[in-house]
């Protein structure tokens, strides 16, 4: 049961925003729709809400087809990026709105409103004018308003993107707690993978389909096939799902380099002998055994005392390319360094087997955590892979 989307296509005049997406959200589950801006994730959400018509495919909830069911009869909740509170109603009036349309008695409305405001941490705000609220408070009111009628499904459209970073991170944790506590089934659209991982039980990565479908993961190519059929005009063919997985699984095993790159993996080392490589990471350049994706903390700068004996190891050995950061290593040139989150990150120009790339590497040892002794621009440094920060990508 829950939400079931089948081959959904959303078109605006001339362009296709969503190119055939199939998706299931179980009862009580929180699913994040993650993707870069313009990939059609908001359009898909609006189609589920009934705000955009489907050009093809269908949306069903609890086994019931929602075609022909107007927005106001779907019993869903929707949280916009900027709240969209009713300026002529006070906070309590906003929260109670959905209960009024459901003809809930006044006393029950008031009780429910109080309960919801407490849930979102705004107890006692009933009579405040919405114009006096801060951005974070507005979003909390909007959340309370959406939750008040106990929606069968809550749709959240980048609800925190208008807020500053600290508040965003805090609210993401709170929303997760609120959704879990109320057992709300939810679809959460975001372009921020940290946010998606914080809030969701499962994450669906969305993006434009791979050209020709080649090089995309097996899951994605299934879906991309549908999109290609729909795209007779050959114009923008709309977003498709690239991978759906739980956060840990998604991080551990991205289905393709595109998904991995979107999650923040910064480089890909072919898992095959260098002689098999044409030297680029284009679709034809896949190693026999796939790629090793280097995560944001998957590369380390070895301290000078450790790297000294290894000067001259310009390229990884032919047997184990990149395998085992401690054993192998690459020489690169430091470009600059920043100290943040308690460690030093060095920007390095280095060739991992696919040409010289500018990558970020964590400075190991005491020098790194102290924030001193970072290599100066131009210094030769040795970098090695940290297996804990890497993943194997097949496609």
């Amino acid at each position, binding site marked *: 049961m829950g939400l079931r989307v089948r081959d959904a296509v959303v078109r605006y005049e001339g362009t296709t925003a969503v190119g055939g997406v199939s998706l299931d959200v179980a009862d009580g589950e929180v699913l994040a729709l993650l993707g870069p801006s313009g990939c059609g994730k908001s359009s898909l959400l609006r189609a589920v809400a009934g705000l955009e018509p489907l050009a093809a495919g269908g949306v069903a909830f609890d086994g019931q087809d929602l075609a022909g069911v107007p927005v106001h*009869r779907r*019993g869903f909740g929707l949280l916009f990026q900027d709240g969209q509170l009713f300026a002529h109603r006070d906070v309590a009036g906003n929260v109670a709105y959905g209960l009024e349309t459901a003809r809930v008695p006044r006393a029950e409305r008031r009780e429910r409103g109080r309960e919801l405001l407490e849930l979102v941490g705004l107890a006692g705000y009933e009579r405040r004018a919405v114009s006096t609220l801060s951005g974070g408070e507005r979003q909390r009111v909007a959340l309370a*308003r959406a939750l008040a009628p106990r929606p069968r499904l809550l749709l959240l459209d980048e609800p925190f993107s208008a807020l500053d970073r600290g508040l965003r991170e805090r609210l993401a944790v709170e929303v997760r707690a609120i959704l879990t506590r109320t057992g709300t089934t939810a679809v959460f659209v975001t372009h921020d993978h940290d946010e998606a991982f914080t809030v969701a039980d499962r994450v669906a990565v969305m993006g434009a389909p791979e050209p020709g479908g080649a090089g995309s993961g097996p899951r994605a190519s299934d879906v991309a096939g549908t999109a290609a059929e729909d795209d007779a005009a050959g114009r923008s063919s709309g977003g498709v799902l690239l991978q759906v997985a739980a956060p840990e699984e998604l991080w551990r095993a991205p289905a393709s380099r595109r998904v991995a790159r979107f999650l923040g993996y910064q480089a890909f080392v072919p898992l095959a002998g260098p002689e098999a490589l044409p030297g680029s990471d284009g679709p034809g350049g896949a190693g026999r055994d796939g790629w090793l994706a280097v995560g944001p903390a998957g590369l380390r700068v070895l301290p000078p005392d450790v790297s000294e004996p290894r000067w001259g190891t310009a390229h990884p050995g032919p047997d184990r390319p990149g395998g085992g950061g401690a054993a192998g290593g690459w020489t690169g040139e430091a470009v600059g360094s920043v100290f943040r989150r308690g460690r030093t990150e060095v920007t390095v120009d280095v060739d991992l087997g696919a040409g010289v790339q500018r990558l970020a590497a964590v400075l190991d040892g005491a020098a790194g955590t102290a924030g001193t002794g970072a290599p100066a621009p131009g210094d030769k440094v040795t970098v090695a892979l940290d297996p804990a920060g890497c993943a194997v990508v097949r496609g």
Partner: protein
Amino acid sequence: MDADGRRLTAPALRGRRGAPGRGGALGRGAGWALAAGVPLLFLGVFFAWPVVALVGRGFLADGGTVAGGVDLSGFRDVLTSPRTWRLVGLTLGQAAAGSAASVLLGLPAAYVLYRCRFPGRTLVRGLVTVPFVLPSVVVGVAFSALLQPGGLLGWAHLEETFLAVVLALVFFNYAVVVRTVGGLWERLDPRAEQAARALGASPWRAFRTVTLPALAPAIASAAAVVFLFCATAFGVVLVLGGIRYGTIETEIWTRTTQFLDLRTAAVLSVLQLVVVAGALAVSSRARARREHALDLQPERAAAQPLDLRRAPDAVAATVTALTVAGLLLLPLAGLVLRSFRAADGTWGLDNYVALGTTGGRNALVVTVWEALATSLRTAVLAAVIAVVVGGLVALVVSRRPRARAARRAVGVLDAVFMLPLGVSAVTVGFGFLVTLDRPLGLDVDLRTSGLLVPVAQAVVAVPLVVRTVLPVLRAIDPRLREAASVLGAAPGRVLRDVDLPVALRSLGLAIGFAFAVSLGEFGATSFLARPDAATLPVVIFRLIGRPGAENYGMALAASVVLAVLTAAVMMLAERLRGDRLGAAGGEF
């Protein structure tokens, strides 16, 4: 909590969930068709039909029956007459001069009144708006009182000159420029100009290269609207231009009323329509760009305190002060002053006392007070009609339907309802007389029912109502409606809970505009009002046309009464608009 416990138990809610709309789309379509159909029917019967009938009469030979065949010789005769081209030249010249002067004088005021803060700013803003709603006959009387020999500016010998007409037109339309441009300027992000300054631009250069281009759409839109108002000005030109100066509009009036020359009048009406359609096209394009620009800058930028030590502020403030004092206040003060001078040259309330009479040598059929009562009754009816029709139009036009064809239809509707602004009110009025003796074949003579005058005035007022309500409705974020919809509000309820509270804020102003326009309407009313049911502007015009210092004094006093009444209505309307509804301070 179990799975069922967290569902709302209210049975009403369960029953409604997931239920397909009962013929929802169909019902909604019918609703919108009705909302568009009622105004269209109104416009068709009370505007298009009379105008087409009258214009057609000019082209049909043999007493205006279709059987007589079409006779286009009128075109040849009129278009080859040098008099016609002199009038066209005068109309365009007067409109061009009027709009250029309005823009030049209005820009500094827009800056001072919307970009600067100083004590009394609200008062000056209100003062600037008053002339716009004054009846044209009153403005004509005020300026002629000022310019005629013995008036405050009698020494300048401006009476019955082109310059006098242009000055009066600027007096009228100054507020259009100030409000339109000021409204945008107020919302313009000051940081663009600050960025230019930081890049080394002088204040003047920053204004010229950054601010002015940003304001251009508002300036173009205001200029086009002012051009339109100037080109179709009637009462002012009739009173001030005397016999030497005229426009297409006054010529239509002269041709129809003095010479019963419908053929010439019809050709002139078509000619005027061409001029007006051009100005409307320019203004609607500029308006579309402006509303787009407003989308980009919804925030209200903070106004700086007025600093007279800075050269730009000092220049702008000086120009504004001189304009407001010399062009706006002087004629009004002169009018009020002269109204207290009796026929025998003494000062006192004689002219006002005379308002209870029918004038010297019985110039009138009714007393001025009776005419005032008629005016008020008529205006109430006209305002109700205009607000209902105009409100419906604004509602329909504010929608952005998904289908391209429907969007185009909405655009056409928008344009069609601007037409009454441009078609000669004289044509409308005379067309009523011609067609509405048996409207739609019904056996009721609307001409004697007393309904004709308010209906004609409503036709003239509808465009203003639309222009007042529409921007407010368009400014509603469509997602606000979607939010209500997702929370279970049916389309009608969304309209009630989202659109209505916002529209109410502009409705007060719309009612005020409609009421004020109706109070001052002269062109159509002069045709339709029977002598025993004359309105105040008609009475004033009749009084200044009659000989006798006593009648002229009465005209001045009546003008003051009408001006005060109109200004009071507008002030009340601005108050009604109040910000009690949206605590956000009026911006959405």
